[in-house]
């Protein structure tokens, strides 16, 4: 550990605001890159399933 206290860890000799902003943004962008394909996948599966159901109803 390079920090003596939690406050020192957050403050980082005055650089804390930059460091935490950069890490926060990284977390947001990386998480979005996982989130978007997951949502897209869910929507594709839903749309295709309802399309299949509609086609079946038409046949009946």
């Amino acid at each position, binding site marked *: 550990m390079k920090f003596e206290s939690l406050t020192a860890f957050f403050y980082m*000799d005055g650089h804390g605001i930059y460091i935490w902003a*950069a*890490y926060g*943004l*990284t977390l947001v962008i990386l998480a979005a*890159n996982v989130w978007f394909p997951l949502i897209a996948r869910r929507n594709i599966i839903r749309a295709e399933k309802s399309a299949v159901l509609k086609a079946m109803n038409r046949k009946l």
Partner: protein
Amino acid sequence: MLNWFHRLGSPKTFFEISGRWQVPLLSLAVLMLAGGAAWALLFVPPDYQQGNSVRIMYIHVPAAILAQSGYVMMAGAAAVFLIWRIKLADVAVKCVAPLGASITFLALVTGAIWGKPTWGTWWVWDARLTSTLVLFFLYIGVIALRSAMDRQAGVGRACAILALVGVVNLPVIKYSVDWWYSLHQPASFSLTEKPSMPIEMWLPLLVMVIAYYLFFFSVWMMRIRNEILVREKNTDWVKQWLAVR
């Protein structure tokens, strides 16, 4: 080898193989990202010049490396599509563009955040920064071209050609710090040369670079799988796959 290449070029085979790999790959990537970030934030010694802001390097440098090598991969897929007309390569070009754009954006913004306490400015119009901004616009261009030509014949070829033309920007980014007087320091990370920093600073950077690569590949794969489902929705194997969801 060529046989294997062709097999993987089939959407169905790619979908099956990637289905087995995606969860372990993404888990490993997230684990390494978390571990590498904790290492960078807690255990790396402050730099004698930059102080604690050096910790931003561990998320900025891998993003900058991926921004460029993501473009190389996009151009590679574009070349494969133009030469061999493998449809999966077009899917790969389409799916890597938004991902590459977001990582390039990340590299630009983390660089700006690092620049403020270190250089005293968020942004300078110097060669390295400007050429990376151009890289971002190239990714945006590929995305925009595809959405503008949506469903038209030749959209894949047009995007592939644009992706290939943009390759000229890559050596500009890479050698910008040598060709011009630049505020940006030369490469801090190289596989071929002896590291210029002590091992306790270099090793976590290596972990983060590998983690970013793994992450990049796993989310690229997720996007490709989605696109395959859409493009192949009328095939029997996709219908069967959907039936059990």
